């Protein structure tokens, strides 16, 4: 993220920062502080995958996600059968063998790659993005259990995220929403075999169940979404564009997943029963720390044309005090107060807030 250069002058940065700190903030593209950029989305675009999605943001950035699944033999790192016996004898009562085994579901069964044009795939920023998305997906521990077939076999899921367009802004929300849709449309073949046999599958694709079931009480957790939120002055902005990130005081990536409660099924109204749960968050290094600082015109020789020793001295003093001057850009220094981070989290988790709006929007996407 740090190596994304912004071509804005210090004066432009100061102007942006001031207008974004107003209440209500004035954003360059005229959105309100909690408004997302409009997007178009479709699923099931890649016939060769178990699930796929494409999301295109209004600014022209576009991402494709393909999910592919393979069967893999579960390798017990601790020596196969003996270990199973050991676990059983250690657990004593041994009640619910399947439960015991299910707990062995591992996060490494999910493989995730992110490809961003212009960046190497082993670039630290790309790896950070992939780990962020992966961590949110695995945080509730439910996902890995979905990949469990029986004691000897499991699914290995490959989730490949490709950003087609050049990264015009930090692509985190786009990639996260695309991943969410792709996982919702993912289907795995229906299992015909029983117990610990070699797995046999129904070859009727129409009969294959979704990885995340839609209806019924089983429709528990949903794949997470990750929102990027920045704080500029006192205002909190969702889905920042590149220019807004360039002046952000702090940026936070918040992942949350939606848990549907039982109550929702009874009242037949799904939207009211939505509960948002925080699964992970990370601070993201805002690129504003690398923006060039402004020079006040009192200390600028080129502007005044004359060399005035008194003003020079004044500027030196100012530099010592590090007193921010109105209209002169200075990159943010130090960290963020927790109160600011907390207000960001509250704004994300707020009922009927942005996250609800985004999830409602994604619900409208036709899953094929």
């Amino acid at each position, binding site marked *: 993220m740090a190596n994304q250069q912004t071509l804005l002058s210090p004066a432009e940065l100061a102007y942006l920062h001031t207008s974004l700190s107003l209440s209500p903030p004035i954003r360059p593209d005229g959105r309100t502080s909690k408004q997302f950029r409009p997007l178009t989305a479709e699923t099931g675009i890649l016939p060769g995958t178990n699930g796929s999605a494409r999301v295109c943001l209004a600014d022209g950035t576009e991402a494709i996600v393909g999910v592919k699944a393979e069967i893999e033999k579960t390798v017990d790192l601790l*020596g196969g059968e003996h270990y199973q016996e050991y676990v059983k004898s250690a657990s004593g009562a041994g009640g619910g063998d399947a439960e015991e085994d299910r707990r062995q579901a591992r996060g490494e069964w999910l493989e995730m790659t992110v490809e961003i044009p212009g960046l190497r795939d082993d670039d630290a920023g790309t*790896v950070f993005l992939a780990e962020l998305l992966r961590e949110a997906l695995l945080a509730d521990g439910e996902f890995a259990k979905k990949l469990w077939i029986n004691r000897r076999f499991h699914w290995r899921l490959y989730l490949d995220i490709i950003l087609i367009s050049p990264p015009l802004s930090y692509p985190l929300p786009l990639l996260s929403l695309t991943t969410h849709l792709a996982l919702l449309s993912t289907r795995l073949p229906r299992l015909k075999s029983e117990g610990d046999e070699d797995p046999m599958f129904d070859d009727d694709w129409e009969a294959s169940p979704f990885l995340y079931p839609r209806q019924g009480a089983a429709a528990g957790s949903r794949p997470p979404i990750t929102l990027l939120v920045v704080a500029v002055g006192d205002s909190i902005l969702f889905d920042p564009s590149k220019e807004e990130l360039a002046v952000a005081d702090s940026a936070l990536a918040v992942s949350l997943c939606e848990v549907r409660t039982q109550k929702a099924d009874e009242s037949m109204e799904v939207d009211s029963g939505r509960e948002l749960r925080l699964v992970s968050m990370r601070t993201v290094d805002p690129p504003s*720390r690398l923006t060039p600082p402004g020079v006040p015109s009192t200390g600028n020789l080129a502007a005044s044309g004359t060399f005035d020793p008194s003003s020079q001295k004044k500027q030196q003093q100012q530099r010592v005090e590090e007193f921010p001057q109105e209209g002169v850009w200075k990159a943010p220094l130090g*960290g963020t*107060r927790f109160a600011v*981070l907390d207000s960001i989290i509250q704004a994300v988790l707020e009922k009927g807030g942005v996250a609800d709006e985004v999830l409602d929007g994604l619900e409208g996407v036709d899953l094929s």
Partner: protein
Amino acid sequence: MADRRRVNGPGSSTLPPVYDDGELNAASRRQRAPDAIRPLCETKPIPTICSYMSYHENLETKTLRLDLKTGVTPSASGSAYLEIEPREGEHGSGMKLTCTVHGPRSLPRSAPFSPYMVLSTHVKFAPFATKQRRGYLRDSSEKDLSTHLETALRGALIADRWPKSGVDIVVTIIEGESTRQDAVERRVEEWDVMNVLGGCITVASAAIADAGIDCVDTVSGGVAALVASKDGNDASIVLDPVALEHESVMAACCVAYLPNRDEVTNLWFKGQLPLSASYNHQSLVSRAVQASRGTHGLISASLSEAIGSTQN
């Protein structure tokens, strides 16, 4: 056709032997109070060549040649070694980390102009640091850690005092916290990463102080976790968690904190909080901040001790 000319190894991969060394009984689990952080055994700036020189010049012993001859001392501008006490119990291993700071030095000619110091961080596990051997190339978790560390340090450094220069911060984890039990209780590794990051932040901060790079404050790392008790019903928040000491970890949080400014430079939270409102993310973060305050006290004490020893 099989290769008959050579003596081949077994066809399938082999497994390292795992010894069953005793039950993880309740006694070896948790003996600390929930809000006690483990003492840092040792955190000291490694004397570099420069500090040796000043040290010996002050003593007027003039044994410079001897020290320079060794050549094993890294020519880093600042370095630190951190050792965290092993957990209670007989077969624990603590965490051992070293950090070297190179620079600030001029950027290569090909690098674009930067009005700030360019910070690059590398976190690497030694191949023998964990149960699973780590390769020579950095894997994704190591790269992820280095990005976290960069975010944590960038907020603390006053980068505009060194335009057109670069600083490399290299953290090596010599020994991780994994023991054999880790392999038995599978799911703890992902939680130990948080502890590793906390250690990395603390040791890097001490090394930066040793290198004499200006910071707004000494940043320190702290970890707190929400753990379930043995029966699985009660949850409590512990500082500086060791995943093995608990039945299960539900959520964990690592912060990089500037105590004198009361600011957070890096926040990493993951896990699932129970739906009951008794524990929420705020309490977890504030406990992590408390842990990092504790760490800060320890590193500032050892730093002032190091300064005292070089000045005498």
